[in-house]
């Protein structure tokens, strides 16, 4: 009796292990894909969307910070590199981060890293040419997200910060 079930049980355990690992591996890709679809509705691909401040009624992603202004660009490198130019906002924390399709941070640059100067990043796949004057960020997948975070000391600062951040660009070359 036991011998008849031994090999089916071993097969079931191996399948369970494989299904467990596959689910863990697929989860970040699936959630990032969903986020890119949702965020991508706010602007065309390879263009910044400048979101209003996060509130209980405006939460495009999970666990948003209500103290930060978010600007996002869903990028697609399938037709060529994407250049990201971030306008600095003086006297406060800001950063630009590049997330790949697996949710990993491929690069992050803040006001401290640039000494208050603009951040200029070229998002490329292996073999694509990097434009002069841009720091290369090499990605394995075509799609991902650029996210600019800017700290506001209070909500009244938003119009001033908003005007500056809209000078930032994300564009395919």
């Amino acid at each position, binding site marked *: 009796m036991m011998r008849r079930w031994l090999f*089916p049980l071993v097969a079931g355990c191996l399948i369970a292990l494989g299904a467990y690992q596959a689910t863990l591996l697929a989860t970040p890709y699936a*959630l*990032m894909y969903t986020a890119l679809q949702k965020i991508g509705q706010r602007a065309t691909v390879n263009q910044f969307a400048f979101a209003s401040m996060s509130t209980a009624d405006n939460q495009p992603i999970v666990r948003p910070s209500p103290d930060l202004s978010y600007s996002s660009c869903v990028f697609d490198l399938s037709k060529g590199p994407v250049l990201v130019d971030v306008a600095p906002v003086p006297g406060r924390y800001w950063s630009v981060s590049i997330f790949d399709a697996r949710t990993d941070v491929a690069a992050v640059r*803040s006001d401290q890293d640039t000494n208050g100067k603009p951040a200029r990043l070229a998002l490329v796949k292996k073999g694509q040419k990097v434009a002069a004057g841009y720091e290369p960020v090499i990605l394995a997948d075509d799609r991902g997200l650029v996210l600019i975070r800017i700290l506001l000391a209070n909500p009244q600062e938003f119009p001033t910060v908003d005007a500056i951040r809209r000078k930032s660009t994300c564009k395919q070359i």
Partner: protein
Amino acid sequence: MKAWLRYSLCIALGLIGGVAFAVHQVRGGLNDGRISNGPWDTGKSFGSVDASTLTRAKVALSGLLALPAKEAMYFTATRDSAGRALDGRCTYDVRGGKLDGRWWSITLYEGEGWLVKNAANRWSVPASAVATDAQGRWGFMVSPTPQTGTWLPTGSAKAFDLTLRLYHPSPDMISVPEKAALPVIERKGCA
């Protein structure tokens, strides 16, 4: 029972069991298997290629687009300093001293990480919103009802968590967060 039926049954159960266990672990929140300091939990590999497949999946679900520790650290509390689950009907005194980083804020979330509707339209307390004394000590209240001083409303949330964001943390904070001086969360009473 025929052999093909035995194999089909075990394979189907294995498939369902493997997926179900993975979903259960991922939905277990950000606090499992991580570094603890009082009521706060954090990790060192958020957003990085060094993260394990489980950590990456958990962060994708409960903290998508988190930054690596060099840029920001995220400490989450689901319990008060006495170990009791944070309850939206209770009032808490959150107090601390200088935090070893460039800027901090504490945000209140419910569920998997959503801001809670409340009449005051306040969802976080940043460093700039609290008064500090000569020793750098500060404090604020978390409560469903208005409080004197700085107040973070729980709204209608039954259960909630607090996330402390620390941007540009010091090297010591990054390397030994379990020894950092982090805020205390003291329950004062419940409605």
